[in-house]
């Protein structure tokens, strides 16, 4: 296992005691593209910060490529590449210099550094912008430069914290391409996100985390299969007093695997079956059916099923 996290805990003492990470155990195999999916404040950034030697854990242990990040941070950093949540490009240096100096920091000779920089600029389609300063770049380009710089010293593991936050859809897809290409180079990637599409599209395995704990961990396909349903019907009801009876009735309908109350009405997990929609509408009508949305099950559904909340709440 290239990333081994055991019993990780981080408590921020202060006026308000915050348990940001609450006992995380995690193993990432070499070459894997691993996703940490969770809502705001779940503890994703804190976990990444500890793994990348930027924060000290309150308890627990993290090993990257066999090196303990608390005991020997300077050695561990050789095997780690990081793209943090915010832009940390060196504003006083051009794109070329950013990557070039990064190589020098990691012990490359000048010739090697120059060679590696040119190679990365070409690989990430940045050659034309080599002499631009970070402040002149769009968000998507800056993100690409950060990824290029993060892998310049050939780390074993690349940590990406919210790589698509603030990117437009086009840049996001370009970023996904770049990340997939890294896997071909044999780099293990750990990324955090609160976009379930991103975790689904990109990751081999996903851990869903909330309030500093891992709720489930599996491949996206297995996670979705665990719901035992293909569709989610969300009913918006006008009269919610006797919703419990409706939930009970619906639970017995063939094709429906589960039904539960929400603050707006009822949520139904169901298989795709002909005639089911009509049956649901009919059953719900006496309760003042106002609106009905049907979605395919996704990682979002998994999260809702586990926490009763929306990822974006």
């Amino acid at each position, binding site marked *: 296992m290239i990333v081994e996290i055991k019993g990780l805990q981080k408590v921020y003492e202060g006026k308000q005691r915050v348990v940001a990470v609450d006992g995380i155990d995690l193993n990432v195999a070499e070459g894997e593209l691993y996703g940490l999916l969770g809502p705001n404040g779940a503890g994703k950034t804190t976990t990444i910060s500890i793994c990348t030697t*930027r924060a000290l854990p309150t308890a627990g242990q993290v090993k990257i490529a066999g090196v303990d990040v608390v005991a020997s941070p300077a050695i561990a950093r050789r095997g780690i590449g990081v793209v943090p949540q915010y832009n940390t490009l*060196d504003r006083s240096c051009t794109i070329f*210099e*950013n990557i070039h100096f990064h190589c020098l*920091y990691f*012990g490359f000779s000048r010739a*090697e550094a120059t060679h590696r920089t*040119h190679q990365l600029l070409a690989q990430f389609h940045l050659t034309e912008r080599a002499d631009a300063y970070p402040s002149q770049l769009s968000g998507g380009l800056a993100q690409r430069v950060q990824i290029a710089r993060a892998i310049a010293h050939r780390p074993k593991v690349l940590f990406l914290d919210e790589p698509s936050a603030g990117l437009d859809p086009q840049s996001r897809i370009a970023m996904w391409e770049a990340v997939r290409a890294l896997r071909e180079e044999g780099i293990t990637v750990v990324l955090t996100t609160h976009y379930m599409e991103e975790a689904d599209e990109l990751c081999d395995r996903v851990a869903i985390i909330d309030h500093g704990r891992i709720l489930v961990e599996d491949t996206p396909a297995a996670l979705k299969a665990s719901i035992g349903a293909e569709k989610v019907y969300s009913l918006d009801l006008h009269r919610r007093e006797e919703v419990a009876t409706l939930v009970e009735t619906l639970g017995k309908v063939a094709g429906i695997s589960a039904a539960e109350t929400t603050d707006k009405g009822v949520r139904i997990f169901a298989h795709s079956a002909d005639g089911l929609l009509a049956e649901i509408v009919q059953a719900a009508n006496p309760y003042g059916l106002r609106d009905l949305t049907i979605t395919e099950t996704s990682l979002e559904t998994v999260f809702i099923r586990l926490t009763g909340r929306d990822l974006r709440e």
Partner: protein
Amino acid sequence: MTQLANPSRTAAAPPQTTALVQYSRAFAGLFLRDLFVLRRELFPFVIRVCMNPLLFLFVFTYVIPHMNGGAAMNPTAAMAGNAFSTVLLPGLMAVAIMFSGIAAVALPLAQEFGVTREIDDRVMCPLPVAAVAIEKICFSALQSMVAAAIVYPLAYYVPAVHPTTHVGNWPFLLVVVVLASLTAGALGLTIGTTVKPQQIGLIFGVVVIPITFLGCVYYPWAALTHIRWLQVGVLVNPIVYMSEGLRAAITPSLPHMPPALILTMLTVALCLLTWLGIRGFLRRVIG
């Protein structure tokens, strides 16, 4: 460039090296980066270094002596004979050294901690985080030494009456300049990591100006003998030892503290400020 378009996995991997080699390479890389950025901003750097001493010298050692009864208006002129310029030469060098420490470390750090968070990129270098802070001190010391070297000819040639200088002990001068410069860098680090980024503008009024005026820059320490409380009070100010040290090394004809005391106190100040600065730095960058 086309032959590079394919990512070549065969290119040399960073050589596996011992920790010490790894650290010193990273350190050298950081230093090189700072040099490179400074070279690009050489002109503003020189202006910044020259402006304060130049104006000071011009007004106090050129304009006022040329006025009618100018010498009488200049309070320290009597004490230093005609050569107030002799008092000023080491003092202005000390200010330049101290000020470079602030400008090279405290101001950039405030910005990097506050708005841009760029410091992360250097904190992720493969060397202990404390070494990143030490690199800041060393690079700032280099700037301080260059600044001192720029101020010397100004302070010598601008005054109407040239100062009387005599360097009897070159190694002592070198040690004083190096210690003073490192101390200035450590002071900058301490300020930059203690003061909230939003309040960095205040440090000029609250720190820089007081320690300059009460730093025996414009008068020798011995001249304070009739204001005993002040003479004792200023001893906590590291700038005092910088100016007195330079006085002892360059203009020994003026009264100055004993060299051994100066070196001891500069070393104490350096150790204390470095410790404080590194502690503050670690607290800022490691959560």
